[in-house]
């Protein structure tokens, strides 16, 4: 945003009254944060911002406005992390307008410059809003990742037999996670058999089938045999009509069937005591 040099006079005026303006602005912002940030820290933040504002307005320093935006972006992210609402942060920025207005209210010659100044502050306030939104999106993405991790458990069914109950869609990101967890568990437990339970996978198309095949291949490279179970009737129909072949991978209807199969392969038998 272009700041024309006629704001130079206002910048000088604001510089002359720095103590008063910074003090008043700090008061308003401190009132807004209601003790969640110490008065000393608020004052320090405000002082830094104020000098950046004045440097931007004088027009002499090209980078000042960029630095000011960056400083406000950082402030906004920090506030977001500490649970402040974006409105609270933006209001803190807009408060400077009120303070400066009080200051120049009687100086008619500064009115046109005040308009330019006011627009600049509006732009900066909106900027903190946008930064806040971006920061929240990052947090949500992180939480989505955590959820994905939590919904991909690997359980030990028996000595040497582990199971991976898959719930939800099996996209490539999920598949990577499943493969990593499955293989790490194979190494940690020394299991020779893995059961992939797809009961909770809503649709099995060619892409999902490829992901399953990849997972099985990876497990095999670590010497583990795999069984796929949980093939629901509707899914079975889709698989056959799409021409998907599971080749030499054993497929079973239920987890119980898959366990029996794995036990048999391990040379074990379950019978009455």
């Amino acid at each position: 945003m272009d700041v024309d040099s006629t704001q130079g006079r206002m910048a000088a005026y604001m510089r002359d009254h720095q103590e008063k303006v910074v003090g008043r602005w700090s008061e308003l912002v401190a009132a807004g944060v209601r003790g969640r940030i110490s008065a000393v820290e608020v004052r320090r933040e405000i002082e830094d911002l104020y000098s950046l504002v004045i440097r931007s307005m004088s027009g002499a320093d090209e980078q000042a406005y960029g630095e000011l935006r960056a400083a406000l972006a950082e402030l906004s992210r920090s506030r977001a992390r500490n649970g402040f609402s974006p409105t609270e942060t933006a209001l803190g920025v807009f408060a400077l307008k009120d303070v400066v207005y009080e200051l120049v209210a009687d100086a008619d010659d500064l009115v046109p410059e005040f308009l330019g100044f006011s627009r600049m502050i509006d732009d900066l306030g909106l900027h903190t809003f946008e930064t806040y939104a971006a920061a929240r999106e990052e947090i949500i993405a992180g939480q989505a990742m955590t959820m994905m991790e939590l919904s991909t458990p690997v359980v030990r069914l028996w000595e040497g037999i582990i199971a991976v109950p898959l719930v939800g869609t099996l996209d490539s990101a999920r598949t990577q996670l499943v493969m990593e967890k499955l293989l790490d568990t194979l190494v940690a437990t020394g299991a020779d058999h893995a059961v992939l339970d797809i009961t909770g996978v809503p649709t099995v198309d060619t892409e999902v089938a490829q992901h399953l095949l990849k997972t099985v291949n990876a497990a095999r490279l670590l010497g583990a045999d795999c069984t796929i179970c949980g093939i629901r009737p509707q899914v079975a129909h889709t698989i056959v009509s799409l021409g998907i072949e599971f080749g030499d991978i054993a497929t079973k209807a239920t987890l119980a069937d898959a366990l029996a199969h794995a036990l048999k392969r391990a040379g074990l038998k379950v019978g009455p005591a």
Partner: protein
Amino acid sequence: MERVPIVKIGQTLFVSIQIDLQDESVLRLQEDLADELSKTGAHGVIIDITAVEIVDSFIGRMLTMIGSISRLFDAETVIVGMRPAVAITLTELGLSLRGVRTALNADKGLEMLNGRT
């Protein structure tokens, strides 16, 4: 050039591959293995790649070739100790290492070889 040592224990030849193999070392290993198999009549070969961080298509092909060479001498090859990251990468690359079996570690590899009587 580093020569990979081949150790004979019973009827099995053990090869442990450490760090980044130069191409010539891989080719030398194939020759040495053929020699040993012919000399000793061993029934199995265990290749331990626990320490190998990268298996590209060249190394993959070399491993399958070792499997084929062994089979000519009526011996079976088992690759053991593949790292999860390597297995995932190989799968993504589309290499399925046909012609060699795989096991989690040398113990299981031996079980596999002995079970085949």
